[in-house]
Structure formats: C-alpha cells, structure tokens
C-alpha cells in the first residue's frame, strides 16, 4: 500500500508514519530568514561575548547607570562628561555585558504528534518550526540545543553554536525513530518542561513545540488551567519562553468520512463515530475552538509567546509574521514576575 509520491503524511491517519515526511533541506529557507531577527527582551547570562544584553555589568556596548568615579578602579576613558558637568562630581557610565544567547527547544515527539493530513506530520512541522527559529537566532556565538520528549524519557541534544551544528541537531531530530502508538511511559508535557527547567539553569530562550493536547483531557473551560500551565510559568520566570502550537487542519475541522472506528494513538480510546452527523461535527468544531482558546489563554497567563502553526500552511511565513509583530509586543509579553530581574 506504499504510495508513490514522496511524503505520504496522509497515511498517518491510519498508522504511525515510518519516517520523516519532509527532507532536511526543506525545513527552512535559510537565506530568506537571514534578515529577520528574533527579539530577545530578557537579559542573559553567559561567559562569552555575544550580541545580546547581559544581566550583569561588563564590557559591552549598552550603557547602564552612571555612578561616581572611583579613582584607581575605573578607566578614565569611561568618564561620562555630561553627567560630571551637571553634578560637578566625576561620574563614569557603566555598560552591560553583551552576552551570547542560548536557545533550548523542547520537541514533543509523543505519538499524537505523528499525525498530519496535509503533506507533513505535526512532528515534522515542529522540527521545521525549530529549524526556522534556529536560523532566526543564529547570531554571533549563540548556541542552540534541543530536547526530545519521548513517552518514557527526555532526550537531550547538546547546545552548540553555528549553522552546521544546527543542521546536525535538526538531522538528529528527523531521524529519531518514530514513537509507536501506545508506547510505554507516562511522561506528559508538564514533565518534559519541568525537566528542561531543571536541567538548563542558564537564562536564555526556551522554545516548546507541542500540540498542547493532554491525552484524554476533555476540559474546555479556559478558567481551568491545563496540567502544563504551571510548568510553563515556572520556566518563564528566568527565561523567555516561546510556545509553538502545531495543529492539523482536520483537528480543527472534523472531516466528514462516514462512520468510522476511531482510536487514539496514546489512550485506550476506540469507538465508532459517525462523522457524517452534521450536528455532531459542528459541536466538535466548536469544542475544538474552545479547546484551542483555552491553550491560548493558558499560555498568555503563563507569560509565554505563542505561535500557532498549521500543517496546511506555510510555517515560514507564519513565523516571519509572528517575529515582525513580536518586536513590538515582546517587551510587555515577557515581563518577569515581581521580584525577578529582567
């Protein structure tokens, strides 16, 4: 039953895919992304000299507060003459250290991500999103690391800098064996995020790529926080968090395919559903919208950036549009909680 054409993501409706549905070369148009830049608003810590604002004073290009000149300690070349003239006391202008950015991307590879009806599975769309964000954050010395959340463990791909290393990371994500349906293990998205919070202490950017669906969860009320919300909130205390929600068109619009036995790749759910029932389909679409709204509200509450990508749309364009808009809203969106430095 092998299909002659290249992708075959549609077959993921019947059985788990056997491999990636998109080649490495098509993950992201590197050249086109060169002029875009991901806005980093949170301050970073690190050892190297980079392009982003650091947390602590040090040699850098960004000016900070002026303070009284300490003879013997401060460089006279740093005296701020305008302030000295106004106060008649010699002042120096401090600078903040410029640091490198460390980005960690958590990819959800649980069986529900091995699904897609429009040429690419959600998992591969997630990898493409990581590729795009990776190329957007390729500045001097910036490092990009990856984590893959399997049902039974979280795999870590070490952070390295440079586009070659990024390609290596993406290739590893693509060739990672597909998790079979009903694979043993009880890791949930919240566990994966907690693992990332614990294992990567250095401030930076965190990208979470998932469908944000909890298996078997039928809650629609946005007031009820989803199980992963607390983990995202904790992660956002010290990091700039970007959540990439990958969905398929037919998750949002239940297709009319007659009476079908439908089962879940993760839970034991299996039953016949008559998808030709118009009223039921309308109810389902409304419920799905409410569910996605709940995800959106929960991510906003947790102080994380939120991109929704669809398998039937051009993810590069969607991310580019998001990044352009993000320049304006990032500062407000990623306000740290009270008592935590920016």
């Amino acid at each position: 039953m092998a299909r002659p054409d290249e992708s075959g993501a549609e077959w993921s409706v019947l059985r788990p895919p056997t491999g990636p549905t998109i080649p490495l070369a098509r993950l992201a148009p590197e050249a086109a992304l060169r002029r875009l830049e991901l806005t980093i608003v949170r301050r970073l810590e690190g050892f190297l000299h980079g392009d982003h604002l650091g947390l602590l004073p040090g040699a850098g290009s960004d000016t900070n507060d002026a303070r009284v000149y300490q003879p013997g300690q401060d460089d006279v070349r740093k005296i701020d003459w305008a302030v000295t003239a106004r106060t008649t006391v010699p002042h120096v202008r401090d600078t903040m250290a410029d640091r490198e950015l460390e980005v960690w991307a958590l990819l959800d590879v649980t069986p529900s991500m091995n699904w897609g009806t429009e040429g690419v599975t959600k998992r591969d769309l997630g990898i493409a999103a990581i590729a795009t964000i990776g190329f957007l954050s390729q500045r001097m010395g910036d490092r990009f690391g990856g984590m893959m959340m399997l049902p039974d463990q979280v795999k870590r791909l070490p952070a390295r800098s440079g586009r070659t290393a990024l390609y290596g990371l993406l290739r590893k994500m693509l060739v990672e064996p597909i998790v079979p349906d009903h694979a043993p293990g009880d890791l949930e998205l919240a566990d994966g995020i907690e693992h990332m919070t614990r294992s990567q202490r250095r401030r930076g950017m965190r990208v979470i790529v998932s469908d944000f669906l909890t298996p078997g969860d039928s809650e629609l009320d946005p007031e009820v926080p989803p199980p992963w919300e607390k983990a995202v909130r904790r992660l956002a205390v010290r990091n700039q968090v970007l959540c990439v929600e990958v969905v398929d068109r037919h998750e949002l619009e239940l297709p009319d395919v007659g009476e079908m036995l439908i089962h879940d790749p993760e839970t034991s759910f299996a039953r016949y559903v008559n998808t030709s029932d118009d009223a039921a389909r309308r109810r389902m679409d409304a419920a799905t919208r409410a569910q996605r709204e709940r995800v959106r509200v929960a991510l906003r509450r947790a102080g994380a950036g939120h991109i929704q990508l669809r398998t039937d749309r051009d993810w590069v364009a969607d991310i580019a549009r998001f990044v352009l808009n993000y320049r304006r809203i990032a500062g407000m969106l990623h306000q740290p909680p009270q008592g935590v430095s920016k």
Partner: protein
Amino acid sequence: MIPEFENPERLWTLLLLPVLVIVYLVLLRLKGRVALRFTNTGVLNRVVGAQRRWTRHLAVAMSLASLVALGLAYANPLGTERQPRERATVVLVVDTSLSMSAEDVEPSRLEAAKAAAGTFVENLPESFNVAVVALSGRPSIVVPPTTDRGVTQRAIAALELADGTAIGDSIDAALRAVDQAPPGEDDEEPAPAMVVLLSDGASTEGAAPDQAVSRAKGRDIPVFTIAYGTQNGFVDIDGQRENVAPDTATLERIAVETGGRSVDADDAESLATAYRQIGSVVGYEDVKKPITAQYAFAALGFAIVAALGAVMMAARWPR
C-alpha cells in the same frame, strides 16, 4: 415451517454462513487494528456522545438474511398448491341399514342421504369414476366405478333398506370397487381413489373395522366419513323403539387413520355442507411446485436493505 426441497443436498451451502460470520468477526478484529487515528479523542468522545449504531448491525443482519434466503432458494424449495384433480375414483358408501329409516331428519334419513349423495355426485368432475356401495349387514357394490352419472344417480335413488351395519365389510367392498375401476388410457397408474363413507350407526355385524382400515391405509386410500343422524334418533323395529345414534368416535378414528376427514351431519342441510366439504377435498389435490422465485425475491429485498445500510455507513449520504 420448514418447506420441502427439491435438492435438499444443496442446503449444505448454508454451512458457508457460519464461515462468513467467522471471517467477518476476524475482519472486525483486524479492522480494529487499522482504525482511524485521531489525536483529540477526549473532546471527541465528550462532544459526539452516543450515536445510533443500528445501521451497521442492520446491514450485517440483512446481508446474512439475504444469504440465508439465497441458500434456501438454491435448494429449490417446494410449496404446495391446490390443483383440480384430473382423474380419481370415488367410492360412495351409503348406509342402508334399518336405522336409516329414522325420521329425525326430514323426510327420513335415507331420503335425505340419497338427495345429498345425488348432489355430491353431480358436482364431481365428469372425468371421475364413481362407484356406489350399499352399507348393510352384507355390503354390496351397487355400481362399479363408472363415469356414467345417469347410472350412478339411478342406483343411488334405488337404494333400499336392509338389515345390519357392517362398516368393516363395507370398507372392504369399497376397496374391491376401487379394483374394478377402469385403468387410465395413457398411463398404467390407476387413478387415485377415495372412499366417502356415510353411516348413521355403530358396526353391528361382520369384521371389526380396524383390519379394513389398515388395508385401506396400506393402499393409500383415504376414507372420508360422515357421521349421520342426531343423538336421539330412533327407529321402531318389531314394535320396539331403539336408539340409533351415530358412532362418531369410530368413524372419526377411521378417517384419521386413513388420512381422510370426518364430518358430522345431523340434518339435510348440514349433510349437504358435509358433502360439499368432502367434495372440495376430493376434487382437488396438493401439488408440490418450486417456489424459488419467492425466496429469491426475499433475498433481493434483504440485499437492497443491506446495500442501503452499507451505503449509509460507509459513504456520505447524498444530501
């Protein structure tokens, strides 16, 4: 009711059905493995709720019913159909014992019986051979089997009272009369024979009827009996009044054992009715005819319903 079949050995094909059912169940199992994957089943289950599932069962049940009907049709089921008989020999046994002079039936039992028998003979198809046997102490064949109705009618009209009632001997006489029937012209097989026995009293002479009955049964000749007269009919014989009630139990037993039918008659009208009833049985025969078409039609109906169910289930119903 299980019909008869012309080719009952073909019913073995019905054994395929359990095999089909097993294959269906196995396929269901396999299908369960390749079911549609869907990620958001928690919400789906909550939203969709209980749906009617009867179309699936209907389609499967109807397919099976259709296959059963087809299997039965393949075995050529036979139905019975009433057809007017072409030819037959009817032996009319009329009681002429003294009890027939009783007058509980107007004008007397014998006269009424003669009239009714005459009408009965008249209404029989012309090709039937009719013989008349007078039932008395010494039964005799009054008219051997003949198609000449005039002879028969005259003989019936000329019946006279005689002594005694020998039912067993009269059945034997009737069987002898059957033997005298002329053979068919084109086929050697003698025409089917029937005995219509009218009696108004218990057997008083001769052998008990049982042996004669078993002989009739052995020759496959049904004996239709008419228990004639009222329970309080009487005759005056030699100045003594005697009750002459019909022996309904014996007559009924005779009829049942030989595969005939027994009727009671206690006046002229009910006697005519009794003869009409017997005439309708005697004049027709049950013929086995294949009714394959009916079964095929039932199978077609089931198949159409099953097909509609399958269409509803599998594909989009046109709206």
